[in-house]
């Protein structure tokens, strides 16, 4: 246990006119133990490429995760993939990044552009051993990890971005390195780094990508726990117990809900100052209480966070509208999606009589469901989630 965490994120854009992406990223395992990321790029585009890359990434991630050797994996891929009727080959390029206990990275590459490795935000050349497996040459590297180490894997769509349009030779690996170094910031998530690079590719392609383009990023972060409390406990006698548990936790604190934040402010013996600025007319303003990092309204704010989480998880979303906004929902999204690695939910099950009014679109069931949905999405982002009910 070394207080580090492996953050992963990826974004793909499809070749112009294609409904399916020929690149596929598969992530298996967890940062607690071993985590394997596979980026596969199928031959051609559309359905055929999609099938090839899906099979490749699924087979490789499952086998590597089970600890099989690279020879066996490559052999299985070669034997399993359907052969293209036009080209008479079964082919998908791939990149495998396997992180063991947040302290060692093993990288295996076959025909994708080489993984970019940033240490302290600067590109570093890493040792590569090439091996011949069957008739294929596979590149292997093993790298001991440090905090903030970042790996950027890509499909060849990224290095051809802009060919014949804004650039003569495309956006080459060196250019992507320059770009990645320029945008690098220790607080950035792997998903944000991927999004910014893919967004740049899309701009170079003038919004009409000539090939499926994918960036997958793996970043070593410090563990950062965030605690979120919503709703008072069902038994009013438990308020002190719930507050005690919540405030004794390590990490940032978010309190959601009018009644809940009033109780929390009372517990801390601090005044609650509600801001009058509606940054977004749909999201109630936030409040300030000394000792709490963020105080927001409850159900309406959280339901917006759930919408953001859903969009964030889709691999084709490169907008992230919450990233620069200042309303309560956007602030929660920034803390949970970008910064947090471990999230503890403290959910009070008290029923607010006012919310049982049939004229209101909010009720008790919705609150619990929203939290469960949000927890599920956060799990899919690779975060460690614990939900406690009071």
């Amino acid at each position: 246990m070394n207080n580090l965490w492996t953050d992963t994120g990826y974004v793909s854009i499809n070749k112009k006119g294609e409904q399916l992406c020929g690149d596929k990223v598969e992530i298996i395992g967890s940062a607690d133990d071993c985590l394997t990321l596979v980026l596969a790029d199928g031959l051609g585009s559309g359905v055929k490429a999609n099938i090839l890359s899906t099979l490749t990434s699924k087979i490789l991630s499952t086998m590597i995760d089970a600890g099989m050797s690279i020879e066996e994996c490559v052999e299985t891929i070669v034997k399993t993939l359907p052969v293209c009727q036009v080209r008479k080959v079964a082919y998908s390029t791939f990149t495998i990044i396997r992180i063991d206990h947040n302290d060692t990275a093993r990288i295996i590459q076959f025909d994708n552009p080489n993984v970019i490795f940033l240490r302290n935000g600067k590109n570093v050349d890493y040792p590569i051993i090439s091996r011949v497996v069957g008739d294929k040459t596979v590149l292997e590297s093993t790298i001991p990890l440090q905090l903030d180490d970042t790996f950027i894997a890509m499909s060849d769509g990224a290095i051809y971005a802009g060919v014949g349009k804004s650039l003569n030779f495309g956006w080459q690996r060196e250019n992507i390195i320059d770009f990645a170094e320029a945008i690098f910031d220790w607080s950035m998530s792997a998903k944000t780094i991927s999004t910014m690079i893919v967004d740049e590719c899309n701009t170079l392609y003038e919004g009409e990508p000539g090939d499926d383009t994918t960036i997958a990023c793996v970043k070593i972060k410090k563990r950062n726990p965030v605690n979120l409390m919503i709703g008072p406990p069902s038994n009013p006698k438990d308020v002190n117990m719930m507050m005690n548990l919540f405030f004794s936790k390590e990490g940032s604190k978010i309190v959601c809900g009018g009644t809940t934040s009033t109780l929390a402010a009372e517990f801390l013996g601090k005044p609650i100052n509600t801001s009058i600025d509606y940054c977004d007319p749909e999201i109630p303003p936030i409040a300030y209480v000394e000792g709490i990092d963020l105080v927001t309204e409850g159900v309406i704010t959280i339901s917006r966070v759930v919408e953001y989480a859903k969009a964030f998880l889709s691999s084709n979303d490169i907008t992230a509208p919450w990233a620069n906004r200042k309303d309560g929902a956007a602030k929660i999204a920034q803390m949970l999606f970008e910064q947090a690695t471990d999230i503890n939910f403290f959910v009070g099950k008290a029923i607010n009589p006012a919310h049982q009014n049939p004229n209101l679109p909010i009720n008790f069931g919705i609150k619990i469901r929203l939290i469960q949905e949000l927890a599920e999405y956060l799990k899919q982002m690779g975060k460690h989630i614990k939900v406690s009910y009071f």
Partner: protein
Amino acid sequence: MNIYICVGSSCHLKGSYNIINLMKDALEKNNLTDKVNVSAAFCLGRCTNGVTIKVDDEIITGVSPENFNEIFEQHVLKNVQ
């Protein structure tokens, strides 16, 4: 004079945003911005009858754009020194 406008979930859904803007405009029109302090409040405990506002210690519920002028005259203009 202090005025609090509830921005809790229920009142928010019933239009706190509009009431805040109406209040700010009305105070400006009557040159009261330096005499009256408007802030937001999280849940004044009258969720079923929102939008709820508090003028000094008096709680007024059911504020809407329709009855806003009337309430403003009765509770704010009359009492402000």
